[in-house]
């Protein structure tokens, strides 16, 4: 859940999750794009599994020779066959593993790139509705789950599947009746899965939930550790953590309990198959089923060894079924994003005549969690900002300033009313074109990890270091940037050099200069730096708004003084409008605010 520009909490609907068919389609498209590698994987892995069958078969022949009391004549050629088979298996396994990894990694890279592309180009309306949280978990957790599966589980699964198919085929190849005997274990495996899956699935879901709650409880308490101690809450918080941890632990133990019974059922299936092969083999060797031909002791040996060879891969597949399901769920969530339509871009958007912004009859309310309309936060506002004019928006928290700013920037679509840029409706202009003309610096601040220059350069990739430095200079950031250990090449962002709130804001403003839009909307709230820092930021904002159409949400009244016009909002409506001097002279709401802001002369408290 994330707060929108205004602060009100809106509903937390999530992005779509693709169904099985659409998820598969996404994978199929990517596999088809690499169909030659896919075919090579198939052929090589099959061949590798087949070569692996030679050893037990040769062993069966040895058993026969020993049983028949034959001489050692055949021993050397048989060992040579085993040696050759071992070498061939090795070569094929090497190729197979390489090809599977290459194919898997390539498909993975394409999928994650597509997901990120869609995520980054999510239409504003969708982004405001779902928030960043869900998107973050998709490009973060889900990608990592799918990556883990593709790099470790998928090759193993492919190998295990091929081994199973070919060993089963080998069993039938030895003798079809032995093959059928081995197949008797199939229903037992099936029953084991049918018993396990419906029991474990809700259990696992519950466990994941409990683990999530435990993590949240710990994070919450530890992040606020100083507050916890200050308010003497440590016992209460430790108790909550203990309780959540205990709950998660109990579930983990419970899940494992179910799993052990499942493992028992797998053992039973192994027993059924192995016994069936040996018993059927017994009667075949005795000739009790002679009507359809006899087999040798060696064949039965090979069959039993084949079947024993199946224990591990089948066990692996069945046990990994969870992992596979989890990866499948992650992939479905990725496909949900990858299949999102891109932002609508009008074919030939009209060209705005100038950079003037007109807001006409704007009203807005957010949607609440239950889908109902919240209270109106902007009411019937009409505001015209002439090209090059600088307008400051003033009002208390919750007066609707940030919402109006978002609407003017085309990030929020008003419930009613129209926004025009140079006479062109923003809806007709389309999101991409709007962004080329109007830049928005919102309250959300973010330092992108990487060098400081690259961070600023996000606004214009082609900008040279000199241009980046010039932009930093114009917003007055150069003194502190040059004082950094590596200047503009200092690595900043999470886990690197930390920047103060004011420095972060400086970067945001420098980005706008580099992007060079015709109109800017500034909604940056920070007085973190104290008064002196605030003044520096005021000057930076002035540099950015110079010779541009500007709407500045004035969290500090000093921002209003420099504006051509001040618009005062109260409870969603515009109540005063005029220059700083005019409004002071008028002695209304703004004048009262100003007196408070500059500090009252006498005590009134």
């Amino acid at each position, binding site marked *: *859940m994330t707060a929108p520009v205004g602060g009100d909490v809106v509903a937390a609907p999530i992005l779509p999750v693709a169904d099985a068919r659409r998820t598969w389609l996404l994978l199929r498209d990517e596999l088809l794009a690499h169909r030659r590698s896919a075919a090579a994987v198939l052929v090589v892995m099959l061949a590798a599994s087949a070569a692996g069958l030679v*050893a037990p078969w040769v062993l069966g022949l*040895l*058993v026969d020779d020993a049983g028949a009391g034959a001489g050692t004549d055949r*021993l050397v050629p048989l*060992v040579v066959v085993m040696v050759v088979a*071992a070498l061939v298996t090795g*070569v094929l396994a090497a190729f*197979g*593993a*390489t090809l599977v990894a290459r194919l898997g990694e*390539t498909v993975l890279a394409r999928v994650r790139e597509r997901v990120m592309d869609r995520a*980054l*180009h999510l239409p504003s309306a969708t982004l405001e509705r779902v928030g*960043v949280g869900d998107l973050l978990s998709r*490009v*973060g957790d889900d990608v990592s789950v799918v*990556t883990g599966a593709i790099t470790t589980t998928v090759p193993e699964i492919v190998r295990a599947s091929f081994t199973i198919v070919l060993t089963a085929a080998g069993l039938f190849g030895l003798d079809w009746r032995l093959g059928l005997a081995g197949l008797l274990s199939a229903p037992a495996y099936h029953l084991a899965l049918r018993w396990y899956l419906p029991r474990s699935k809700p259990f696992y879901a519950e466990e994941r939930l409990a683990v999530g709650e435990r*993590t949240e409880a710990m*994070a919450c308490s*530890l992040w*606020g550790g*100083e*507050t*916890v*101690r*200050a308010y*003497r809450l440590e016992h209460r*918080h430790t108790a909550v953590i203990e309780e959540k*941890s205990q709950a998660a*632990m109990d579930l983990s*133990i419970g899940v494992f309990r179910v799993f052990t019974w499942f*493992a*028992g059922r797998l053992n039973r299936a*192994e*027993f059924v198959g192995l*016994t069936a092969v*040996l018993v059927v083999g*017994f009667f075949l060797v*005795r000739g009790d089923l002679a009507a359809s031909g006899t087999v040798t002791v060696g064949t*039965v*040996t090979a069959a*039993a*060894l084949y079947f*024993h060879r199946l224990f591990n891969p089948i066990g692996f597949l069945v046990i990994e079924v969870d992992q596979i399901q989890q990866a499948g769920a992650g992939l479905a969530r990725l496909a949900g994003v990858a299949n999102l339509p891109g932002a609508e871009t009008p074919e030939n958007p009209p060209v705005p005549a100038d950079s003037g912004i007109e807001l006409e009859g704007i009203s807005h309310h957010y949607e609440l969690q239950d889908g109902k309309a919240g209270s109106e936060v902007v009411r019937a506002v009409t505001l015209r900002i002439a090209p090059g004019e600088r307008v400051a928006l003033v009002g208390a*928290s*919750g007066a609707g300033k940030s919402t109006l700013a978002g609407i003017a920037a085309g990030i929020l679509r008003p419930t009613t009313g129209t926004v025009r840029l140079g006479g062109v409706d923003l809806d007709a202009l389309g999101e991409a074109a709007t962004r080329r003309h109007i830049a*928005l610096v919102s309250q959300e*601040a973010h330092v992108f990890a990487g060098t400081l220059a690259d961070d600023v*350069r996000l606004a214009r990739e082609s900008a040279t270091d000199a241009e980046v430095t010039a932009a930093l200079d114009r917003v007055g950031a150069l003194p502190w940037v040059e004082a950094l250990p590596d200047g503009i090449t200092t690595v900043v962002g999470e886990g690197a050099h930390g920047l103060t709130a004011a420095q972060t804001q400086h970067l945001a403003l420098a*980005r706008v200069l580099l992007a060079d*839009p015709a109109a800017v909307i500034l909604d940056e*709230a920070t*007085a973190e730096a*104290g008064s002196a820092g605030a*003044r520096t930021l005021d000057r930076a904002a002035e540099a950015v708004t110079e010779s541009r159409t500007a709407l500045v949400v004035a969290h500090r009244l000093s921002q209003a003084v420099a504006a051509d016009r001040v618009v005062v909002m109260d409870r969603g409506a515009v109540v005063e409008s005029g220059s700083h001097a005019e409004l002071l002279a008028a002695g209304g709401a703004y004048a009262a605010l100003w007196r*408070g*802001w500059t*500090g009252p002369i006498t*005590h009134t408290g």
Partner: protein
Amino acid sequence: MSGAMGARGVLVRAVRRHLSRLVAGALLLSVHQAAEVAVPVAIGLVIDRAVATGDRTALAWSVVALAALFAVLFFAWQFGARQTLVALERETHLLRVAVAARVLDPRGHRTGLRTGELLSIAAFDAQRTGVVLRAFVVAVGSVVALVSAAVILLTIDLWLGIGVLVGVPGLAFATQAIAPLMTRRSGAQQEAAGRTAALATDLVGGLRVLRGIGAQHAAAARYRRSSETALAASLRAAGTSGLYEGVTTAAGGLFLAAVAGFAGWFALTGRLTVGELITVVGLAQFIAEPLRALGWCGGQVASARASAARLAEVFDADPDAAGGTRDVDTADGITVALKGVSYRTLQDVDLDLRPGELVGVLASDPRDADALVAVLAGRAAERTGDLLIGDVPDGELHLDARRRAVLVEQHDTALFAGTLRGNLTAGVHNGQLADPEEEVLRAVEAAAARDVVDAHPSGLDHPVTDRGRSLSGGQRQRIGLARALLSAAPVLVLHEPTTAVDAVTEERIAERLSGRRTGLTTLIVTSSPALLARADRVVVIEGGRVTRTGTHDELRAADETYRQVVTR
């Protein structure tokens, strides 16, 4: 806790705490491993005694014996594995809770670790340390398996047995030796993949910022480049890991051919029975498993030791303040006095807070403000000079008494998951409030946060999510302020309480604050003229020293620098 635990102490305690479970688990898993060894032996016996002879009675007994073997195999595993898992989970749980308790301990901790690191210690290092218990049990089981396989092999044929027992470990060592080549490549691959993953969350985390300047294209291109680099590293690693796979597969196959060759030779010359031939070959394949398991245990113990060292760092951390035993009477208000206090940037600071006073502190350097707040919060162990709370040196005060007397509300407001009401009443202990609803709302009103409560139909019962992220910065700050005001602490320290609110709201807060704290002592570290104007006295700290004291109006009238700093 007496003395340092160290990594060893953590691991030893883990094993000791669950010793009986571990012994039971190890015994049962040993039985299981022995049963696993017996499966190929059993196949050989059944072929030898029943299939080759055609004896129906032998077949019947074979089936019964196989059933018994599988039953032993399963039950031994089930109970053994459960004992082990319960021990592992309990230990992990105990460690996790112990880390949380130590971090939240009122004495504080001097680990120098950031919260993210502490969280990762509580989550991952606790888990990895717990795994040492499983490694312990698995190691015992694997050794039993190896020994029983060795005994069987040596009884069947001394020289063949020796060959297998030397060959299998030799092979395992050889493949281990070439493993580093592969892991180096995959290390580079993981690093590149990690960077790409971090870039994804970083870019999406700043998505609103990107969108504001239309930089999504640039961001997507940047991500694609990083993803391509990661892919190239993965493709390179695929070759080496494929090679490794091929070499180990071929080596295993060649070894098997050698064993089959010799065993076959012996069988054909009558030195081994058919059943023994099958058993030898079967065991030669099986031995690789417990060996691999032992290798796994070695790796787990190494990583558990590293994790245990990190846990020990937390458990052994020195406290910030030990606290004494004395109490302080706060009934008639108390004084707080700093005498010659130096800490970080602060130098020789004297400051007196008298009962009922509202004092503003203007520190031109934010580091001075941070240091002063840390001293008052009792988080400044390296401080020199005296801090007297109600005339008692703070070191002699019991930590609970100290915290009851002086409450510090952090600048960076921390809210907790729960409801607005739960957060607001955090400082209310043991039903101090006569009319909870009314008093809570009055505090909310004083912090100009009524709109936060009124914005939701559920009002005070509106849910607050993890770390208060469902609220905006300004809302969080005001709820934090209301929480501090509601607690009615004898001495309240506020640090820049209005930085995230707009001018209008700040003015409202300033108007109501002093009325709310009448008769109680309040210290506000701020540069807001609206707040400073309401202070009885303003103390100016410059360059770590107290340079001037006076009322806001006096200072503003007399002092150009002061005017500079507070004029906006």
